[in-house]
């Protein structure tokens, strides 16, 4: 009996790990945008929802193969991210943070309403099944495995981009001293636009991975948007490495907590841990270094 218990426990840990990779990807784009532009896109999960619809529509309604529909989705949501910055954020860059938050909240409801009008409230399924596989007595989901690997590759790519390229260095620099950027030949507006497009592209990639696992409907953003936001806060808003760590911690609470109790209790434990952390370390698990 003990050995079966152990194997299911291990399965829960592994599932938590897979979930953590996906959550890390979800939080990366939101965190990047906040860290660079200092604006929280409350509607970030709705961009992912729009991307899921884009893939569903292209694949099931237009007959596109997934290998064409998915890259198109990444580009489309990336363009949506750039448009989001240009037409929604840029006009309120100098406004109070609460106004910026409300504007992105408005976009959240706008996207929900538009997708409801376009596609109705039915749950839409892609109709693609990736076979799972068994390791000993553990069964692991193929779609989750694919999502984990793709998320890790994207995160590694983003890390290399931010650390090894001139534009990536500028993206890290601009939050430290925006006013001085023109002396480097950097146009701050362009850096913001590129950052927003990358954040959108990451949301598009997340849409590709989520649509393999979940049905899409206009309110699906609400089921992972709040978690994404909490992970960013848990890791210290704008702290990319903190967000990465927090995603895995949070996922283990959900998965292992759900194993010992029930799935819902996993979420309760995760949110309780979040609140406790906010009292204990209000600036996040890995508190961001303060400005010198």
């Amino acid at each position: 009996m003990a050995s079966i218990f152990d194997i299911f426990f291990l399965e829960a840990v592994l599932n938590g790990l897979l979930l953590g990779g996906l959550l890390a990807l979800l939080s990366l784009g939101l965190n990047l945008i906040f860290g660079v532009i200092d604006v929280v896109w409350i509607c970030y999960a709705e961009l992912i929802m729009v991307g899921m619809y884009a893939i569903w529509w292209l694949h099931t309604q237009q007959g596109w193969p997934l290998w064409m529909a998915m890259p198109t989705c990444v580009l489309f949501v990336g363009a949506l991210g750039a448009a989001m910055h240009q037409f929604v954020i840029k006009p309120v860059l100098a406004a109070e943070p609460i106004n910026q938050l409300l504007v992105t909240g408005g976009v959240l409801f706008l996207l929900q309403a538009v997708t409801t009008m376009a596609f109705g409230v039915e749950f839409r399924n892609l109709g693609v099944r990736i076979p799972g596989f068994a390791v000993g007595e553990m069964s692991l989901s193929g779609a989750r495995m694919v999502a984990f690997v793709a998320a890790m590759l994207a995160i590694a790519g983003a890390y290399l981009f931010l650390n090894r390229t001139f534009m990536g260095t500028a993206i890290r620099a601009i939050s430290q001293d925006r006013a001085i950027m023109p002396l480097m030949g950097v146009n701050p507006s362009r850096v913001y636009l590129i950052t927003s497009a990358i954040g959108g592209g990451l949301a598009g990639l997340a849409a590709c991975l989520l649509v393999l696992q979940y049905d899409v409907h206009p309110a699906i953003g609400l089921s992972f948007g709040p978690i994404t936001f909490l992970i960013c806060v848990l890791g210290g808003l704008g702290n990319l490495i903190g967000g990465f760590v927090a995603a895995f911690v949070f996922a283990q609470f959900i998965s292992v907590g759900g194993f010992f109790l029930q799935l819902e209790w996993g979420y309760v434990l995760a949110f309780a841990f979040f609140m406790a952390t906010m009292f204990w370390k209000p600036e996040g698990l890995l508190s961001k270094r303060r400005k010198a």
Partner: protein
Amino acid sequence: MSGPHANPATDTLLRIDNLSAGYGAFQVLFDVSLEVKAGESVAVIGPNGAGKTTLLRAISKLIEPTAGQLHMAGQRYDGRPAHEVISLGIAQVPEGRRLFPRLTVEDNLRMGAFLPAARAHFAQRLEMVYALFPRMKERRAQLAGTMSGGEQQMCAIGRALMSGPRLLLLDEPSAGLAPVVVQSIFEVVRKMSAEGYTVLIVEQNIQQVLKVVDRGYLLETGRIHASGASADLLANDSVRRAYLGV
């Protein structure tokens, strides 16, 4: 290290005609004209609040001039946005250094080479800067904000050199530094002008800066009040009385 050796000081690199600038309704500069020839080192001296930093900010287009013209190598550029000025060959070491404190020394230097034209020379200019400031090579992986003031100033000068500028603007490089460090910073300025860099430096530290530059302008309450060769300015009675305490 090889500086951009220009013709003997004959051709004008930077020319400022009747420049006025300020912040909103608060005018700081009044009808300022000056020029810097290729290969020269020139100082703008004057007391605190005279408008020296504002002058450099206007030259880099960080603030919009309200009147007057800016020319670089014969090309008028005061209508261009700030981020295009560096592509004309004007690099500035701003007041207070303004490094990116949470980037490494090498990433700060990388930012100096952001321009597409400068990226191709990144490795070569990095070696040049490391040869000029060996300390920066030792500290290449250190966060810039954790270094001493003198080291930060070297990093800031190195960052400006990474773009391969034809004109280097230095804003109070000695401010806030210990006297012995100030000496070494002025030594760097002297060395750069000896190697053919064209330098426009703004300083309150009048006595020391006039020893390392060719010419100077005296800026007081936003107006040029005197100009001439360094030796002449040092001998100028009003300069001596007001600033050198003799």
